[in-house]
């Protein structure tokens, strides 16, 4: 295991990105993934361990310019307890409610769940169907520089993202859902707590006259990253949510995903789950 040579706890975003400048810092937030990964030897510490807990720019939930802005340090418990998130993004609260255990929700951060980039990350599926954008900061030529990109383009593989080693995730921005917008999340696991998804599904759309438009569908744990499902989205767009319509969309979903066999389930079983749970979610939307 590589050894930590320096410990640094910045108190401003400027200090944090300065420390990250040469990409030689391991970022510590909640620690709930960093600790077991480093202890299992899956992750090697870089030269500096940088604890970002005291960076104020990464804290808080606010509505700003038509977006809900959520700081990277927001814990899963804080998300669930936030009146703004409850009011505008109930699907995110729903996913948080299925996240690990109370002890882990009290420590784990949204930024950590995103940067850890697990294909089964619980918050990632609702964030994808909510059109979340990630906001990254870095230091270039002595100045703070920012960029945003859609979460759907952020993940490149298990544990891998487009975040450069000198960039810090500041938070996410989610457009305020328009009236009539609905969003649902379903996680399938073998027990309610502390379970890693066998599969998870997010569906969002504008519900009008028994059909969804401007549809978003995302699936977890069926690909190397959390994924949007363009074929299923197209099949669901404007589709009448009667028995035949729902059956057709569920079929497209089953055919679209390309999961693998692993310790939690076989690929076949995951495809069946995607089919059956998509159907059950759409039945629920139709009844609503």
């Amino acid at each position, binding site marked *: *295991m590589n*050894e*930590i*040579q*320096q*410990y640094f*706890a910045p108190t401003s975003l400027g200090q944090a990105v300065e420390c990250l400048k040469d990409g030689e810092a391991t970022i*510590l937030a*909640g*620690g*709930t993934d*960093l*600790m*077991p990964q*480093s*202890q299992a030897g899956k992750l090697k*510490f870089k030269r500096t*361990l940088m*604890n970002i*807990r005291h960076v104020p720019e990464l804290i808080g939930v606010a509505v700003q310019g038509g977006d809900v802005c959520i700081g990277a340090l927001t814990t899963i*418990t804080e998300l669930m307890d936030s009146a703004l998130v409850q009011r505008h993004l109930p699907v995110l609260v729903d996913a948080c409610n299925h996240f*690990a*255990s*109370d*002890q*882990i929700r*009290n*420590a784990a951060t949204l930024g950590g769940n995103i940067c850890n980039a697990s294909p089964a990350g619980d918050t990632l599926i609702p964030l994808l169907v909510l059109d979340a954008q990630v906001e990254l900061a870095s230091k270039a030529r002595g100045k703070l520089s920012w960029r945003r990109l859609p979460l759907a383009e952020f993940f490149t593989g298990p544990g891998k993202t487009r975040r450069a080693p000198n960039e810090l995730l500041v938070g996410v921005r989610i457009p305020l859902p328009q009236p009539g917008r609905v969003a649902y999340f379903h996680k399938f696991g073998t027990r*309610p*707590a*502390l379970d890693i998804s066998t599969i998870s599904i997010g569906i969002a759309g504008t519900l009008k006259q028994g059909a969804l438009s401007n549809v978003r569908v995302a699936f977890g744990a069926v690909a190397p990253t959390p994924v949007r499902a363009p074929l299923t989205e197209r099949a669901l767009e404007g589709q009448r949510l009667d028995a035949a319509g729902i059956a057709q969309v569920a079929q497209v979903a089953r055919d679209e995903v390309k999961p693998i066999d692993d310790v939690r389930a076989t690929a076949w079983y995951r495809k069946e789950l995607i089919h059956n749970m998509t159907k059950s979610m759409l039945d629920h939307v139709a009844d609503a």
Partner: protein
Amino acid sequence: MSLMHDIDFTLNGVKRRATVRADMSALDMLRDVIGLTGTKYGCGEGECGACTIQVDGLSVNSCLLFAVDCHGREVVTIEGLAEDRSSTRAAALRDAFVEHGAVQCGFCTPGMMMQASHLLDKHPHADEAAIKRGIEGNICRCTGYKKIVDAIVSVGNQEKGV
């Protein structure tokens, strides 16, 4: 030898300083550096809850917490709960675990009590279902969940005056 770092924090109401390895968990600090062995090592990956402590009033798995991250914070362990003479809830929890026989081998007990105490702080009127959800992150393998849940429910009921 990994980098050593000095931290200052409050442990069970008393200010103290510790010198810890930068990659060390708060659990290892409590047990091996400070010598408080009430907090247990079960799984080391946040699945079992035996290492539950409270930091700034929230329950966390001390096996997942970096010791350096305790700097400037308020840490309470089972030793703090055991010796707490100021809180009627701490006393009620201790009595309830004894009266309901909620302790068998005892290994999960420190974590269960720390989580129960946090749960009742946040939801003083939690019902049985909420209590079961609240201790989802604590595993008892003896297994006496029913007695544990009964004990915690009884404390909530006492406070409600039921």
